């Protein structure tokens, strides 16, 4: 009977830990005392590169969630997706018909195999158009905040710092916080230190991400394997 109680406790503990993780990490639900705010990413100097068109490719959980032509005023990436690629294509190589076909394919995809097929088509399109791609990862820190917080929205301003036929680099330049009373606050994002190589990609470090990423795929199965080994060893020693 004692063993049964221990086993039931371990089962409940495991389910409890997983439930807690499921409900707290990446939680989409909002409590009564919370509100969601908009999170708008914009590239503000695309007009300096008038011989290019810019696309954003939004990668969701299973594959490409959307692919869209981006104007300077457009917001992209509400922050819930895995990452976004910003793509620059020379106007002479750009074909809006081919993009339309890709968009139709992405909008009508349903099965997992279809996601892979669409990714291949998009990759082919980017290769054909000699597109330059840079990746932007987003933090969704400001999506859900306490209701009494006066913050209304956050604009994340990105700047193209390098764009030519071999390099494309985007950097976050400014955060603009807008409050419900109409005031705004700007925060200039520090430039990377000298010697830092951006290598045509942008990433925003998220310290809480390590725990979130590794809990499910490393710590959880690791703990389970440990329990299996402990159980087998205990049984062996008990027998011996």
């Amino acid at each position, binding site marked *: 009977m004692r063993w049964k109680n221990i*086993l039931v406790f371990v089962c409940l503990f495991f389910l409890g830990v997983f*439930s807690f993780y499921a409900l707290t990490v990446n939680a989409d639900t909002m409590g009564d005392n919370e509100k969601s705010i908009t999170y708008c990413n914009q590239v503000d100097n695309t007009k300096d590169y008038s011989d290019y068109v810019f696309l954003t490719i939004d990668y969701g959980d299973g594959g490409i969630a959307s692919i869209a032509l981006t104007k300077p005023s457009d917001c992209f990436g509400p922050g819930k997706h895995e990452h976004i690629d910003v793509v620059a294509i020379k106007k002479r190589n750009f074909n809006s018909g081919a993009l339309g076909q890709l968009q139709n394919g992405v909008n009508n995809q349903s099965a997992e195999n279809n996601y892979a097929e669409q990714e291949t088509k998009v990759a082919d399109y980017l290769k054909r158009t000699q597109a330059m791609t840079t990746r932007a990862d987003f933090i969704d820190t400001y999506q859900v905040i306490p209701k009494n917080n006066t913050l209304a929205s956050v604009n994340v301003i990105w700047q193209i710092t390098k764009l030519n036929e071999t390099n494309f680099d985007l950097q976050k330049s400014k955060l603009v916080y807008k409050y419900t009373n109409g005031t705004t606050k700007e925060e200039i994002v520090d430039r990377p230190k000298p010697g830092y190589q951006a290598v045509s990609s942008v990433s925003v470090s998220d310290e809480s991400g390590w725990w979130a990423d590794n809990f499910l795929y490393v710590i959880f199965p690791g703990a*389970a394997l440990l329990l299996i080994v402990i*159980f087998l060893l205990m049984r062996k020693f008990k027998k011996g």
Partner: protein
Amino acid sequence: MIFDWLAFVVTISGEFVVLLLVFRKNWPKLLFFSIIVNSFTWPIASYFYYNFLVSFVAVEIAVVIVETFLWSWLLKLNYLRGLGLSLTVNLITALIGIIVF
């Protein structure tokens, strides 16, 4: 994430019910085994499935092989019976997964 959690619970429940139907005794132990075995295989299988675009069948085959050993050791079965059990529980949970999700 809630979707993942549901899929995980459905997998554990499905395997637990099959184990219960096969062995018909000591349910807390069977539930415990079902949770620890799936807590080990399910996250790793999901990781490979989503991140490396490995096909569903390939992931299921890998899971069946790993679970063959785990079920054989935990339930003191010979490997052939372990394989049979692993195949049965995974076939049923895969079918549930395809129908439900």
